């Protein structure tokens, strides 16, 4: 594949779209409500696993399984939030870091339920190859066929998926843009800035924070379902804590408190993420391609540090607001 191939750009767009939804969840929690969630990936994992288990083991239909996947992520949000949201923000940070890792370790170590280290492919036990994806692939095939009427041979499955993902991402961006500007968003902002002030003027801080946490969980779950359907097979290793930091990178790249900067950050991230495979020029060509994949992680870290040091307001942020003291 070369850099001029449209298939590459379709893939970049698709991954960017999924990460828009994923990061939007973190935006609601962290940028709007000031809730530091360092285990966002857990919502992805719980939704994907719930969906896959229900489809493979219990032959539940795709829609129902997906809805229950989101519901499971909501439950995880409640479990993390109920004990920690009344306390200082640090406690939620600790709870979410731990929660994210607990989910991944459970997935790894409960092979009877989750397929263990093999992941979704092992859901039916050793010797059987399980797949949760037929119904979704059928749906994509029909969509691709419909697209090929106007587009001919350039209509691919990835293109169909990218359009679907972006339709959802766009809708969600509009919905949350409106919510951010609503009185509801105003209360969240006040809570982020000064919880005591919000309480003193009669706002139930706990309830608002819980709403933000749960909405973020729903968005994380949606991204998790889309990613699972896209990659077709997943294992606990696909839900490393790094994914949460990808979402933070996207928010920071775009501009921490700018909702419309999320697609920009996500596009930049996706390009970086998918583009590392083209870094085969000297001196990087001396490293084998497997190791080169790790450059991605190195670059993510480097960019985070550089942005924090040189441009903390991100690509589109507002520096003046950032410099105000609390």
């Amino acid at each position, binding site marked *: 594949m070369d850099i001029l191939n449209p298939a590459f750009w379709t893939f970049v767009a698709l991954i960017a779209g999924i990460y828009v939804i994923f990061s939007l969840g973190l935006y609601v929690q962290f940028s709007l409500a000031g809730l530091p969630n360092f285990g966002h990936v857990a919502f992805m994992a719980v939704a994907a696993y719930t969906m896959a288990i229900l489809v493979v083991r219990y032959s539940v239909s795709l829609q129902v399984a997906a809805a229950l996947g989101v519901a499971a992520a909501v439950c995880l949000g409640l479990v993390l939030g109920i004990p920690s949201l009344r306390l200082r923000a640090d406690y939620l940070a600790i709870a979410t870091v731990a929660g994210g890792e607990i989910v991944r370790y459970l997935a790894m170590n409960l092979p009877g339920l989750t397929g263990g280290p093999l992941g979704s492919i092992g859901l039916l036990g050793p010797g059987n190859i399980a797949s949760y994806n037929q119904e979704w692939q059928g749906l994509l095939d029909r969509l691709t066929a419909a697209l090929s009427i106007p587009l001919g041979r350039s209509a691919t499955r990835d293109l169909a998926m990218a359009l679907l993902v972006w339709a959802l991402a766009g809708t969600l961006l509009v919905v949350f843009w409106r919510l951010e500007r609503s*009185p509801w968003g105003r209360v969240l902002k*006040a809570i982020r*800035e000064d919880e005591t002030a919000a309480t003193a003027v009669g706002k139930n801080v706990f309830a608002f924070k819980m709403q933000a946490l749960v909405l973020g969980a729903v968005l994380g779950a949606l991204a998790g379902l889309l990613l699972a359907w896209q990659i077709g097979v997943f294992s606990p290793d696909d839900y490393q804590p790094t994914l949460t930091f990808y979402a933070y990178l996207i928010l920071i790249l775009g501009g921490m408190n700018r909702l419309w900067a999320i697609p920009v950050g996500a596009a930049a991230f996706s390009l970086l993420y998918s583009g590392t495979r083209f870094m085969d020029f000297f001196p990087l060509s001396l490293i084998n391609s497997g190791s080169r994949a790790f450059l991605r992680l190195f670059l993510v870290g480097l960019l985070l540090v550089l942005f924090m040091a040189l441009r903390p307001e991100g690509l589109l942020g507002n520096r003046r607001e950032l410099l105000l003291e609390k």
Partner: protein
Amino acid sequence: MLEVTAISKRFGGLTAVSEVSFSVEAGSVTALIGPNGAGKTTVFNLVSGFLRPDGGTIRFAGRSIDRWRADTIARAGLVRVFQAPRVPTRMSVLENMLLAAKHQPGERLALSLFAPRRVARREGEIRRRALEILELIHLQHLADAYAGTLSGGQRKLLELGRALMVEPQMILLDEPMAGVAPVLALQLLDHIQQLRNRRGVTVFVIEHDMEVVMSISERVIVMDEGRVIADGSPEAIQNDERVIEAYLGRLAPDGKPEPGGTTP
């Protein structure tokens, strides 16, 4: 308006407030004074629901509020203003005001998405009211400025204005004059008196400046070491021996407190 009966609060081994009882009459300006560490702010925290009393009862407007959450108490009309202004700095002055309004359906997720006209109508009412109050406290020209750019005194004014947005029956002011420039302090004092005279809001205030206390309040409650030691008119308080001993003990011969006599 407010009836406090035998409330106590312990922090570990320290009894900050011990069996404190007093009442604040509707429509009055009542001052709470006492040396540092007397437990005044703790009493405010207990009354406003930011702390739970270990014992005793608190009644406000005929209802028992000692088990209520702080936000419920505020919505019921007992609003507290902090000693160090608590102002969300990255919100504009106007947003700070709008935030405090009650009955905005748009604070509920579903309504803010699906009932935009109801939300907009209420937002219009709230905005008018907020601008009126901002004009009253002379902050209207700063409506769109970030609250973080205001001076300390302006923040106190904003917090007072914001408290008015909650439509309080009673307001708790914790050292409103502390750290405010003299010009603003006079303005603030005027506003506090207006609050009661024009709006009928009951004012309960912690204040250290004895001149201010004596000039604005009809009743003074004096605390020392977690207990109420005197309660009466400003004149009676000035002549009460226990008060003089505990609090005004270091009066200079000319009757004014010495520089070190009152706490800042």
